[in-house]
C-alpha cells in the first residue's frame, strides 16, 4: 500500500502551519530519519523527518503553502517495488482523521478559548484618546523586561534556556542580542540553586528577574522563595530588602500531565512578605511586570502558557506601569459578581456572554494581584450584585476562592442573597487522558452553572 505522508502537528497546540519548503523531490529514495521538509509554526521552524522508507512518488502540497491543516496528506510514498498505478485509489480515499477517533475530539480544554474575548481596557490610568497597539502576551512580557533593563542596569534576567534558546516559550526573544550574556544568563537545571543565587544577588544590590521554565519547577526552589526572599525583611528588622521577580508560566498547559500542571496562586498567596501577581491580558502583563521589577519586594509573577500567543491591545504610552494590588472590573454587570484571575478571566467573559443570552447580567472582576487581594473592589461589586462566584484553575481546598468567599462573608454578609459558589479544578492530580483532563479543569460552562446556581436559576 502506498503511504500518505500527513502534515504533522509539531506542538501540543498546533492546528495548522506553513509547509515552508521541501528538502526532497519526487523520485527520491527516502529512509527513516531523513529530513523531508521544513514546517513553520507560530513559534518555530521545524524539520519533518521520514518515518517510513520508500520512494517519494508525489508531492501533494507545494513548498510555500500556508495554513496547511494538521493531518492533510502532503505527499505519497511508495514502498520498494510498488507501482505508481497504486496511487489513484489512495488519492481519492480521504486521509485518516484523528478527529474520528474516540479521543481527542473536543477533549482539549483549549478548544474553549479559540477566540480571545475582547476586553475594553478601561483603566483610569489611560489618558483619553491614547492609541492602542495589538501585542501578544508573550511580547508584552518581553517588552516589559526590555524596557526595565534599558532603564536600570541593575536589572538582569536568569533562568533555563532564557538566552541562546530565546526562552523555552520564546518570552525572552531578542533579549540576549540586546543586553548580552552578562544580563541575560542561561543557568544549568538547578532551580534551588539559581533561585538562591538570585535572592543573594538581590541582597547584594541587584534586581534579578528569575525565570522558571514553568512554576512546576519552582517547587524545587520554594525554600528560597519563602524562607529567604519573603521573610528576610522581617527577620532583619527592616534592614534588608529583596527586590526580585520570580516569573514564568503557571497552571495547566495542554495534556502535560500531573507533575507539569498546577496553579500555584494559592500556594504563594499564603505567604506574608510576598507580592503575588497573576495577570491575564497583554496590557496587564506589561504594566504589572514593569511594576514588579521596580518594586522593592519579592514578587511572584504567574503567567499562563496558553495565553502567550493571544493578542490584546496595549496602550501606546512611553511608560505603561500599573499599580500592584488593584483589581479591575473587566465587564460591569448587575446580577452576579464573578471573581477570577489569569486565563480564567477569558473564560469568565465567555461565561458572561452566555449568561447575558439567558438574561443574567454578570460583573467580572479580574483580581490581577493575588496578594495583597483588592477586597475593596470585590466587596463593592458584591454589595451591588448581592451574589458571588469565584473561579480559579487550582484546587478548591484552601484556595483563592476560599479566601475570597471568607472575606466576602465577613465583609458583606448582609448583602448576600445566596451562599457564594466556587469553581475550581476537581480535587485530583491532573490526568493526561484528554477526556479526564477536560472533566477536571474548570471552563466557561462551569462558571455559567455556578452563576445560575447563585441566582437560583439552575
Amino acid at each position, binding site marked *: 500500500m502506498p503511504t500518505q505522508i500527513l502534515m504533522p502537528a509539531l506542538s501540543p497546540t498546533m492546528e495548522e502551519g506553513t509547509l515552508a519548503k521541501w528538502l526532497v523531490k519526487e523520485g527520491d529514495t527516502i529512509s527513516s530519519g531523513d529530513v523531508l521538509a521544513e514546517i513553520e509554526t507560530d513559534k518555530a521552524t521545524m524539520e519533518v523527518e521520514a518515518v517510513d522508507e520508500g520512494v517519494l512518488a508525489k508531492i501533494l502540497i507545494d513548498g510555500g503553502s500556508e495554513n496547511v491543516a494538521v*493531518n492533510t496528506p502532503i505527499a505519497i510514498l511508495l514502498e520498494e517495488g510498488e507501482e505508481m498505478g497504486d496511487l489513484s485509489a489512495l488519492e481519492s480515499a480521504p486521509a485518516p482523521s484523528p478527529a474520528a477517533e474516540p479521543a481527542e475530539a473536543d477533549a482539549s480544554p483549549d478548544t474553549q478559548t479559540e477566540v480571545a474575548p475582547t476586553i475594553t481596557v478601561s483603566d483610569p490610568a489611560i489618558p483619553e484618546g491614547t492609541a492602542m497597539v495589538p501585542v501578544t502576551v508573550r511580547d508584552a512580557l518581553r517588552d516589559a523586561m526590555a524596557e526595565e533593563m534599558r532603564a536600570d542596569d541593575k536589572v538582569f534576567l536568569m533562568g533555563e534556556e532564557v538566552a541562546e534558546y530565546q526562552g523555552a516559550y520564546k518570552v525572552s526573544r531578542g533579549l540576549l542580542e540586546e543586553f548580552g550574556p552578562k544580563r541575560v544568563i542561561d543557568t544549568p537545571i538547578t532551580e534551588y540553586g539559581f533561585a538562591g543565587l538570585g535572592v543573594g544577588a538581590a541582597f547584594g544590590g541587584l534586581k534579578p528577574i528569575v525565570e522558571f521554565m514553568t512554576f512546576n519547577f519552582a517547587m524545587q526552589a520554594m525554600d528560597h522563595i519563602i524562607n529567604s526572599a519573603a521573610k528576610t525583611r522581617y527577620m532583619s528588622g527592616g534592614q534588608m530588602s529583596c527586590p526580585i521577580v520570580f516569573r514564568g508560566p503557571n497552571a495547566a498547559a495542554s495534556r502535560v500531565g500531573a507533575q507539569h500542571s498546577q496553579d500555584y496562586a494559592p500556594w504563594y498567596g499564603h505567604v506574608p512578605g510576598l507580592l503575588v501577581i497573576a495577570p491575564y491580558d497583554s496590557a496587564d502583563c506589561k504594566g504589572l511586570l514593569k511594576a514588579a521589577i521596580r518594586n522593592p519586594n519579592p514578587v511572584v509573577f504567574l503567567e499562563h502558557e496558553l495565553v502567550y500567543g493571544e493578542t490584546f491591545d496595549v496602550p501606546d504610552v512611553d511608560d505603561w506601569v500599573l499599580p500592584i494590588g488593584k483589581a479591575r472590573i473587566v465587564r460591569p454587570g448587575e446580577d452576579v459578581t464573578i471573581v477570577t484571575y489569569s486565563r480564567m478571566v477569558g473564560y469568565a467573559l465567555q461565561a458572561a456572554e452566555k449568561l447575558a443570552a439567558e438574561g443574567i447580567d454578570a460583573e467580572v472582576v479580574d483580581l490581577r494581584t493575588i496578594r495583597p487581594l483588592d477586597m475593596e473592589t470585590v466587596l463593592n461589586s458584591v454589595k451591588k450584585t448581592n451574589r458571588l462566584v469565584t473561579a480559579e484553575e487550582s484546587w478548591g481546598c484552601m484556595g483563592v476562592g476560599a479566601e475570597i468567599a471568607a472575606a466576602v462573608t465577613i465583609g458583606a454578609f448582609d448583602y448576600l442573597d445566596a451562599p457564594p459558589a466556587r469553581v475550581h479544578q476537581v480535587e485530583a492530580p491532573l*490526568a493526561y487522558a484528554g477526556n479526564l483532563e477536560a472533566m477536571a479543569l474548570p471552563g466557561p460552562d462551569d462558571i455559567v452553572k455556578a452563576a445560575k446556581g447563585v441566582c437560583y436559576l439552575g
Partner: protein
Amino acid sequence: MAKSPSKAAASKAAAPKNLKKTTKAEMLEFYQLMLLIRRFEEKAGQLYGMGLIAGFCHLYIGQEAVVAGMKAAIKDGDQMITGYRDHGHMLALGMEPTGVMAELTGRIGGYSRGKGGSMHMFSVEKNFYGGHGIVGAQVPLGAGLALANDYLGNGSVSLTFFGDGAANQGQVYESFNMAKLWGLPVVFVIENNQYAMGTSIERASSETQLYKRGISFGIPGEQVDGMDVLAVREAGLRAVKHARSGKGPMILEMKTYRYRGHSMSDPAKYRTREEVNDVRQHNDPIDYVKARIIDEKWADDAALKEIDKEVRAIVSDAADYARESPEPPASDLMTDILAPEVA
C-alpha cells in the same frame, strides 16, 4: 563539538569495539530490542504528528544501546527508574508495547490507565518505577529503592538513570553522599547525550567529565561508549556486581546522543544537521550490532530484514491497540488518589 560521541568512538577505534566477547544469540537479541525501541519511537513520533499523542513526548532514538546493554547486566528483581525519556526503559524491561503506546494515547489500555501519559508510567511487576517529570527527582528515589533493597536484604540493585542536564541538580549530590555513606546497592547511570534541551553540556557544567562527579564522595565512576551495547553491558556487569556485593554505589557515564529534538516541539537550532547526521552515519548503535552480526555471519541481510518486519508488526499492533483502546471512563476521574485503608 569537542566531546561528540563520534570522537569518543574514534579514540577507541584502536581497540575495535566489535571484538568484544559476545554470542550470536545475544547479538540477535540486542538487535531485536534496539530495533523495537527505535521503531516504537518512530511510530510514537508519527502518532504525535497525527494528534493522537499530546503534551510532551520525548523520544529515545539514538540512545538504544544504553538501556539494552544495562538490561543485559541485571537480574530479575533489579529495578530501573528514570526521567521522562522513558519508553526505551519500559520496552527493555519487557513491558508490553501495546500498554506503553496506549498510555501515550491516554487510553484505558495504557499502563497508567491513561492517567500518566508518556512521562509517567510504572510497572511494579516488571520492576519499573517510572517515569518522572521533574528533572533530577528520580535520583534520590532510585537511591531510596536501593535503601529498601538493603533494608529488606533482597539482594536487588537499583539502576537509576538520569541525563547530563539532571546531573547538575543538587539532590543528585545529596543522594550520592547518602548512597555511599550507607553503602546502598545503586548504579547511577548518567545518559550523557550532550544536551539538556538547547543547552550543550559545555554551557551548563563546570566539570564535563561526569563520571568524575562521585570523586568527592568516594564513588567510583567509569566513562562508557554508550553507542556500543557491548561496552555498556560490560561496564554494567562490573557496576552491578560492585553494588550487589555491598561495596555501595557506582557511577556509569554513558556517552550517547539523541537524534531527535528534546521533545516533539523543539526546533533544535542549537546544533547543526551535520552534527546529527555524522553520529547517525558513523556511530549508530544499531548499525554496530548489525555490522557485527553480518561480519560474524550470524545472520544475513535477508534474515535481519525478517527481524525488522517482525518488529514493525509488533509496533504496528501496538499503534492499532493504542488507537482502539477507549478513553478511561469518567468514573476514573476521582479514583487512585489515596490508597484504601486496610481495616
